[in-house]
């Protein structure tokens, strides 16, 4: 790639990037060269990938993931002037209520999730519905690394290097019909492996459901992710397949997806069903529209130290206005929060 037109959210050089990340860029360049030189030796590449980011716990990648890894387009989208959240924090501070409501619960309990074999159902208004084994589902796509800000509705945020592919590529494969207006995602429902679904005091009607308007799903920033930090997704982060929509609050980015449906009506999402006045269908990051219980004008970028709180202004559409604002022209974002 010789010519690249930079977007507002792109950046190649950064003066405030921490040294560890800077150094990992070097190893990345080296790694890329090794990868090119020795793409027939995937073992080399995978050994190097563990070192792409500091302190990444090596996982046990399924075969299809290991096969795809060398062909990954690294740093396809990056963030400007921002440090990547340490792996430990991104994997031990999670909202994944299927495994408990405390931030540490998913890391503690998600080991019980069985991600192999995994299948995904495609149904609804599509020309090619079906149930696909994940390795077949993934076959057509090249992995891209997308470094995105993640803004939780609870007013904390992180920066995470995801690996995945644009939803638009999936839609090209499954061919939505003219009736398809929305895309609906469903998380696994399996009380045996998901203790949160066994709680008798729970208010959530499982399975967890999320959705996007079809044109939102077609936006190049919206991806389905299968990896992060150069490895497959850890269970607590939504293995083996999750949505990532960086301009919306984190709860839109549904985890451990088992069903993707193209539908003609706006799907009723989980958080809407629990508290429609607090969580809307759109859930676009918007500093000017408060959550009823707290302000959304600022966020704590994690890790945020006790004596050096890392509080910053929240950006409209989480800083992705240039790419997505056009989706919402004429829409009252105060009403459609």
């Amino acid at each position: 790639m010789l010519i690249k037109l930079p977007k507002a959210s792109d950046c190649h050089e950064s003066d405030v990037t921490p040294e560890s990340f800077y150094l990992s860029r070097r190893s990345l360049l080296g790694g890329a060269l090794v990868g090119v030189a020795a793409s027939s030796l995937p073992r080399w590449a995978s050994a190097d990938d563990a070192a792409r980011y500091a302190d990444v716990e090596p996982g046990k990648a399924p075969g299809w993931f290991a096969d795809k890894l060398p062909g990954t387009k690294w740093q396809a989208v990056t963030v400007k002037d921002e440090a990547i959240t340490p792996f430990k924090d991104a994997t031990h501070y999670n909202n994944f209520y299927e495994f408990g409501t405390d931030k540490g619960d998913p890391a503690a309990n998600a080991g019980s999730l069985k991600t192999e074999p995994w299948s995904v159902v495609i149904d609804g208004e599509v020309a090619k519905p079906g149930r696909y084994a994940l390795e077949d589902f993934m076959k057509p796509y090249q992995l891209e690394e997308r470094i995105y800000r993640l803004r939780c509705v609870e007013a904390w945020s992180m920066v995470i290097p995801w690996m995945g592919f644009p939803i638009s590529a999936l839609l090209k494969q499954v061919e939505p019909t003219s009736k398809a207006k929305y895309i609906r995602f469903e998380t696994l429902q399996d009380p045996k492996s998901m203790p949160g679904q066994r709680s008798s005091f729970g208010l959530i009607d499982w399975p967890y459901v999320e959705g996007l308007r079809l044109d939102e799903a077609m936006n190049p920033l919206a991806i389905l992710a299968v990896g992060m930090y150069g490895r497959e997704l850890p269970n607590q982060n939504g293995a083996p397949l999750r949505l990532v929509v960086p301009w919306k609050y984190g709860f839109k980015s549904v985890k451990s997806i088992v069903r993707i449906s193209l539908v003609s009506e706006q799907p009723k999402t989980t958080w809407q069903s629990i508290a429609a006045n607090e969580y809307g269908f759109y859930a676009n990051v918007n500093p000017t529209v408060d959550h009823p219980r707290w302000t959304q004008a600022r966020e704590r970028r994690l890790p945020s130290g006790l004596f050096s709180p890392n509080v910053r202004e929240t950006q409209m559409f989480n800083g992705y206005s240039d790419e997505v604002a056009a989706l919402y022209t004429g829409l009252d974002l105060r009403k459609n929060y």
Partner: protein
Amino acid sequence: MRFPLWRVGVFIAAAVWPLLWLYEAWRSVLGPDPGKVLVDRLGLGTLILLLITLAMTPLQKLSGWAGWIAVRRQLGLWCFAYVVLHLAAYCVFVLGLDWSQLGVELRKRPYIIVGTLGFLSLLVLALTSNRYSQRRLGSRWKKLHRLVYGVLGLGLLHMLWIVRADLKEWAIYASIGALLLTLRIPPVMRRIPRLIAKNAPSATKA
């Protein structure tokens, strides 16, 4: 002063938690958002201390041991100390000492308003917890200090509005609170049997 060791033991048991949490925060073992963890733990600590304080009278009735009542005021004051720390931690770590934002929160958020009312009530109770106030207020003192039942209701409501998806933990505290309040209904209170004549109690967890 009666029960000096017991009183000191309760003092240490209540004081040790915030110090431990502060130490944990300093050692960075509270995760990436230690301020929020501290706010949550101090809030929950306040509620638990309130429940423990309210358990002292029934325990005294049940066991006949005067030591329960001897530490009741101390526990109430610890409850107040925790709520002060909870509020301070909220102002520093959640609001980032942005006082104009505090004004907005106080006007707009019902759970903040309820929490603030609970805090102000505890403030009044703490200020009038000394012997001088007891003498001055006379019989009105007892009436005033029944405010603590209202504080329990406010605290539980404050927590209910924060819990979002799973009511289990809240339900446990609410049922303990409901039980403790039920025991205070005079006909129920009169019927509490004295189970144990004399017994050395084990230290309670703060």
